[in-house]
């Protein structure tokens, strides 16, 4: 049984079926979307027992020739680095679908694109062939463009175009780098990542640096790393809530994943060469992202900038070039996906009711909406790294890894933690505490649908924070061997 194919392409089948359904049958469309995203999630969960935690090697490998004349293969597999992210993706997509039940116009197209997006995202984490990787990578772009551009906010077209063109620019350089790797490999030429990784010894330093920069450019825009991050706040603000969730929870992770999976293994010398710059970028991402978030009055934009800050922790962990840092980066990806996903959902909840996201427009909501206030506080505290919640473990491991190599950079980055605490606390204070703003005196508390989408994330946040063993065990062996080959 080709489990990875099932996981990856079940949503595609769903998308095709949705295409055949008449657009008036909203219920049927939603059901089909849930069934196929659910199949994908259940299949990925079903892989858990079979996943060998004791080996650093690729598992669940599927390998078929695709375009033999160019050495392109359909080559899928997961290891401790990618498998947690596959689980995150399939899980967050179901959460995103629950949140999507509120979408009312052009339902058919929406769910179609949503499922296509899911295929692309899962595929990126499973693909072990560079061309296959690239195809999946680009496959995420088009649905995202439509999802933002059609179902977004007031400036949706602008945001969609900016997102599309900017990320596409990055991908072009990535494609060039991939082709360079293809021709640099010894004959017979191949796009196989694992094969290419064995040939790195024969490549000159300058070549590796050049290729690394090409790859990095593509990844950095997705991460997003300073100074290529400015598309993110706009895209987040304009995107509909579920798409913001997916964007933050999964799409950003593709960049960091690519950095670890491709840049590190295929251009180790270039990677090493770039480390000092990477750590500076990480520090800027952390401190500067937090400062920008502090200046926001729009809740969604604030959360978006906090993503810049949080992805900076991932970069910092990676820049440390220690296994602890890598562990931290992967864990931070998981926890950020869960926590920021929940934050976006919650911001969506308040926006649906009040039709504003202005922080200072509220006040004293904790009395009227205790459940909402509790969940928002939980996720906000998780996001600012309160121990006992998932954010802390990832953040701490990132710092732990980076500190061994870059003491000063880690010390400066701690300022980012403080700034993060500052803006989240201010948000909590202005929105929930103080005297109740009479304008919102009759806002209803969260509905069941909203609770169903947020509560699982909240539970996972606590679970991962208290007992991080489960996700860590999945990735430990792989990461342990990422440096000491």
């Amino acid at each position, binding site marked *: 049984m080709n489990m990875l194919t099932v996981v990856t392409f079940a949503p595609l089948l769903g998308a095709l079926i949705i295409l055949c359904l008449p657009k008036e049958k909203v219920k049927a469309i939603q059901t089909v979307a849930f069934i196929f995203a659910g199949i994908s999630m259940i299949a990925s969960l079903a892989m858990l027992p079979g996943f060998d935690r004791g080996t650093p090697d690729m598992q669940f490998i599927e390998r078929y020739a695709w375009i033999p004349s160019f050495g392109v293969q359909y080559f899928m597999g997961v290891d401790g680095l990618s498998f947690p992210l596959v689980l995150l993706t399939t899980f967050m997509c179901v959460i995103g679908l629950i949140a999507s039940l509120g979408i009312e116009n052009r339902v058919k197209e929406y769910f179609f694109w949503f499922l296509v997006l899911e295929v692309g995202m899962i595929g990126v984490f499973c693909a072990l062939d560079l061309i296959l990787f690239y195809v999946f990578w680009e496959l995420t772009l088009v649905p995202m463009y439509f999802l933002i551009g059609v179902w977004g906010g007031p400036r949706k077209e602008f945001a969609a175009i900016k997102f599309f063109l900017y990320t596409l620019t990055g991908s072009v350089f990535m494609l060039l780098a991939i082709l360079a790797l293809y021709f640099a490999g010894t004959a017979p030429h191949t796009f196989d990542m694992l094969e290419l990784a064995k040939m790195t010894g024969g490549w000159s330093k300058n070549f590796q640096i050049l290729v690394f920069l090409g790859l990095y450019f593509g990844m950095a825009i997705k991460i997003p790393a300073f100074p290529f991050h*400015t598309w993110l706040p706009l895209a987040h603000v304009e995107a509909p809530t579920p798409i913001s969730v997916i964007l933050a929870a999964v799409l950003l992770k593709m960049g960091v994943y690519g950095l670890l999976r491709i840049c590190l293994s295929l251009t180790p010398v270039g990677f090493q060469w770039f480390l000092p710059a990477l750590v500076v970028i990480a520090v800027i991402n952390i401190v500067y992202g937090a*400062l920008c978030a502090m200046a926001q009055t729009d809740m969604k934009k604030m959360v978006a900038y906090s993503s810049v800050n949080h992805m900076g922790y991932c970069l910092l962990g990676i820049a440390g070039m220690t*296994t*602890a840092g890598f562990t931290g980066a992967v864990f931070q990806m998981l926890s950020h996906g869960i926590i920021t996903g929940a934050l976006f959902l919650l911001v969506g909840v308040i926006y649906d009711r009040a039709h504003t996201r202005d922080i200072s427009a509220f006040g004293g909501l904790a009395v009227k909406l205790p459940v909402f206030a509790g969940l928002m506080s939980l996720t906000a505290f998780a996001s600012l790294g309160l121990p006992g919640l998932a954010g802390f473990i990832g953040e701490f491991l990132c710092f732990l890894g980076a500190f061994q190599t870059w003491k000063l950079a880690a010390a400066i980055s701690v300022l980012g933690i403080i700034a993060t605490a500052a803006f989240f*606390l201010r948000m909590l204070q202005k929105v929930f505490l103080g005297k109740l703003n009479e304008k919102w005196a009759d806002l209803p508390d969260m509905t069941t649908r909203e609770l169903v989408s947020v509560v699982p994330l909240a539970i996972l946040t606590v679970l991962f924070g208290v007992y991080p063993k489960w996700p860590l065990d999945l990735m430990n062996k792989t990461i*342990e061997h990422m440096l000491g080959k």
Partner: protein
Amino acid sequence: MIEHAYLIPLIPFAASLIMMFGAKEDPHSPVAWIGIGAMTICLGLSVSILAAAAGGQIPLPYEHNWHWFSFAASIGGKSFLYDMPIGVLIDGPAAVLLVVVTLVSLMVQIYSVAYMHEDTRYKRYFAFVSFFTASMLGLVVSSNILVGFMSWELMGLSSYLLIGFWFEKDGPTEAQKKAFMTTKLGDSGLYLALLFIFAKVGSFQITQIHQFINNGYMTGTVATVIAIGILFGAMGKSAQFPLFIWLPDAMEGPTPGSALIHAATMVAAGIFVVARLYFIFLAAPDAMLVAAWIGCITAFMAAAMALVSYDIKRVLAFSTVSQLGFMMCALGVGGYTSGLFHLTTHAFFKALLFLGAGSVIHSVHTNDMRLMGGLSKKMPITFVTMGAAILAIAGIPGTSGYYSKDMILANIYYANQPIFWIMLGTALMTAFYMSRLFILTFWGDDRDHEKHHHAHESPFLITGPLVLLAFLSLVSGYMLNRDDLVYRLLAKPTISAQAPAGHAPVHAEAASADAHAAPALSAAAAEHAEGGAHHEGHLPHWLHLALPFLVLGSIGLAFTLYKGPRYALADGLKSTFAPAFHLLDRRWFLDDAFDLLVVFCDKVAAVAFWIDANVVDRVFVDGWGLLTRVFAEISNLIDALFVDRTVDGFGGLSLDLGVGLRGLVKEGQVQEYLMYVAIAFSLAATLILTR
């Protein structure tokens, strides 16, 4: 009993969850008794542990670890899986503190049943208090500094929740934010210290770190940096200069909560952590000196502020800060035992003072001491118990404060004379401002008749804990001091002579093997420490005799200045020394400095965002777009000039032809088109066939 020590933090944690999620919000629900019951069990466990330890039945330290999670780590280029332990480490100070925390928490919760009985968020209050107690106990028992740090932060969270308990008002919400941010600032130091420790030692386990230092693997510089980081954390949590600004504001919370968190236990956590990792400080004399001076400055500044404040809770808050300064200073000069001793006694009398103040506030509904006065007749039990606490904190011989403060001063005397004289002055100021509080509140005649008229003694649930704490405030010092029990329980840890730093066995397993062989705080080491500490525990004879008289003198001064309803003498002083009073009223302008810092940060944030929107976005997105467009324009030009001309030529030709032909047909008629096709086809066919 000690093997179940892990239950001590878990029981109140479970209780808080049950209360938070299992109970309905109801001002009269019996939910509070869940927390009280849980705390009683914990108190029983703690007392049995302490009794057994004091009697020598169980050897301390006791350590037991479980596996929590593993992660891949690499130190010195070597990758390994680090197994993070979670467990309990109970040494003397931990055993003592367990009893202190559970006891004070129990008293506070019983007291709160009466104090909070009309509040709409009754169950939440008790859940928060239990949650706080659980995290504090977690810090006390933890064998792993990372777990300790996590509990430490959770304490910060519960402090945040309790300060802002009445969040409808602006005061508490501002105060809770300030408290969280200030302590977070301090925590960043502790955070870095943890990172540094792991980078050097490769372990978070306290005993392994001790072992590492014992082996002389840590250089003085590294130890100093780590110790300063820990100290910074302690400065935030234990409200030391200059981070003490949050504590006076934290009094916005419910008074019993303040008594527990911001007086007796949480603020002592910083001191406790410094004591827990004291071996690092022993390896870093410079950091010790810094700690001593910070403690000294804090004690003095806070005591000075307490001299002029009229808010009863603020005076107590300043007094707490000042006493914490005493403890920090004691630790800084090497007075490990005396610092922790004072921590213990202080917890009792300061909790009592706060609960007493709460009883007063509950009765007269104001914090302003100028509106009180003459309450001794109305509230005799509160009056007597508060009196006991004030005797203790002032250091009247025989009370608990006397023993611990005397020991601290003696330690300082032998270590650092300049600090000693400042601290002696501060001790006298303590006696003065506490007497002032007492006189203004209880003595003489009433100043506000209406408030005085409504005043009444509090119910038994409030006075009961007061009486018990008063008893402890009076005798705990004597009990602990008897037979040198305090020296045995709170024995200073030792580190062996500094060996030159060689190649460290960074691998965690190597260190753990050693740790088994030589328990960190071995009994022998404790014996050794005792000998040294004994001599330092006593002031020179003349000072020892003079001290009580000095204290009595300063109490007498307070009486002279503040007796009577108008205290004209004190007001006269105030106008004479107006600038000094203003400085103290404004709290040394530190709050203003903090506000400036906040404003400054906001400015920086605004600038950063401006840059983001106007520079980074412009350059990297719009700039990129511009570049592309320039390229596009150029290629467009080429296209238009050369390529397109050809296409246009053909296009134009067919267009002209089409326009010419179009005149022939009636537009838009399919059948006509078809006819032309048929005609053309038949013509073509004829031509071909007839050729």
